[in-house]
């Protein structure tokens, strides 16, 4: 019985992610529309906001690319639900594909065969982090290919330092121009290693638009990069304008003295994320 309720909650979270954009993103898009001066830039944001409203009211996917689903799980080691979560998530994804509906996106990389249910080898992607306690928090991210194709990794020389990081981020984001459906959120992961820097970038985009890193120095760097990116003139959808980016989020790890990995995660305006919290008694909260 509990399992069925959990699956229903996961299904609802997937549906809400596809159809309803978080309020922090909608507010940021509205603000962006207010400051644009060019008619063409305004039109992009007006159509995006109108679209968001239609999708929410009709419970239909806001974007035809309903993405690849990733579940970042902070799993309390004392939670009684860890054993069944993988199965429930997998079943919820297949069911959501049918009932929302989602676009069946997963294909075999070599044969191109599409199973039609968004499942497959390592799909959906589930990332586990074991934490203390008996609570489970699942962060769901539905991310399309347009922006995922604009992610990047660079192993900088350590002497390049913070200036090198800034230059790489700016050169990359400007190079992508309108391809990844700006304005969105740029996640930057610094340090760790090649894989960890990209993962930190992805964890960074799970934060609310407008939230700052707790370390004031990192928070300052976020704001500086945001300001510099918006000086590029790329604008909404790359048609020119003052808002190319809604926010920059940075996360970092200690690194090897000989390497400075920087991972950039580009998130489009359709910043679709949802949180599912399960307590020890099986009470579920979706937000």
């Amino acid at each position: 019985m509990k399992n069925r309720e959990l699956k229903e909650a996961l299904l609802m979270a997937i549906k809400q992610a596809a159809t309803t954009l978080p309020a922090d993103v909608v507010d940021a898009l509205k603000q962006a529309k207010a400051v644009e001066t060019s008619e063409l830039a305004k039109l992009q944001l007006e159509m995006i906001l109108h679209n968001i409203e239609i999708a929410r009211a009709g419970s239909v996917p806001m974007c035809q690319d309903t993405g690849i689903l990733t579940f970042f799980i902070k799993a309390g080691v004392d939670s009684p639900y860890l054993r069944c979560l993988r199965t429930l998530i997998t079943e919820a994804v297949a069911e959501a594909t049918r009932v929302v509906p989602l676009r069946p996106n997963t294909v075999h990389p070599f044969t191109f065969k599409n199973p039609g249910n968004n499942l497959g080898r390592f799909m959906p992607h589930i990332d586990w982090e074991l934490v203390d306690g008996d609570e489970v928090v699942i962060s769901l991210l539905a991310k399309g290919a347009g922006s995922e194709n604009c992610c990047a990794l660079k192993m900088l020389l350590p002497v390049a330092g913070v200036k090198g990081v800034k230059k790489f981020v700016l050169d990359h984001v400007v190079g992508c121009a309108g391809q990844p459906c700006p304005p969105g959120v740029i996640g930057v992961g610094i340090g760790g290693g090649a894989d960890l820097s990209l993962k930190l970038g992805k964890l960074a985009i799970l934060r609310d638009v407008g939230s700052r890193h707790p370390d004031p120095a990192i928070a300052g760097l976020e704001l500086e990069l945001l300001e510099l990116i918006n000086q590029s003139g790329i604008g909404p959808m790359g048609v020119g304008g003052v808002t190319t980016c809604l926010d920059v989020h940075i996360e970092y790890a200690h690194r090897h003295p000989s390497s400075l990995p920087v991972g950039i995660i580009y998130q489009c305006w359709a910043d679709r994320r949802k949180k599912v919290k399960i307590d020890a008694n099986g009470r579920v909260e979706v937000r």
Partner: protein
Amino acid sequence: MNKFLHTPLTEEDIRALHVGDTVHISGRMFTARDEAHRLMLERRENDEEIPFDPSKMALFHCGPVVKKEDAGWRVISAGPTTSIRMELFEDRFLTAFGTKMVIGKGGMGDKTLAALRKAGAVYAHYPGGVGALAAQAITRVANVYWLDEIGIPEAVWILDIELFGPLTITMDSHGKSLYRDLEESIKKNLERIHEQIAKGA
């Protein structure tokens, strides 16, 4: 200028369009992404039949969300996908099939711009991912081809449309491209940004 057009589009319709114009289009369009471009070009090269006439419809870079109902397929969400992926063969595609309007997002490159000029075609921009709004202008799924071979996102969907838009002409048949023009100013902005980074802490 705001224009209302109906497919099939004529050369006259197209040559009258310029970068910055706004268009609503009615009639019919077909979707084609990476796999459909490849498949259709292969068929044309092998003199195999294409079961519809691409010259009479607009081409939409899109892989829709669709639902099968008793009455047939219904489009739920259908915004444009990233057009630059098709830069690889759009020039050959336009020459081979005589399609007069490409609808997509993000813009395309110099090869396509030259082909638009030569073939008398335009590239029309619709905001990326604006799928729920776009679906409201799609009145019917007239047909679908190669669904089993390449799956829902990649298949060619033939769609009846009513006042699809507003589209913005961002690459015209006279060699002008909004993206090319913007590139110049963005390059200058980036140089200034580099200077600021160099001066910073």
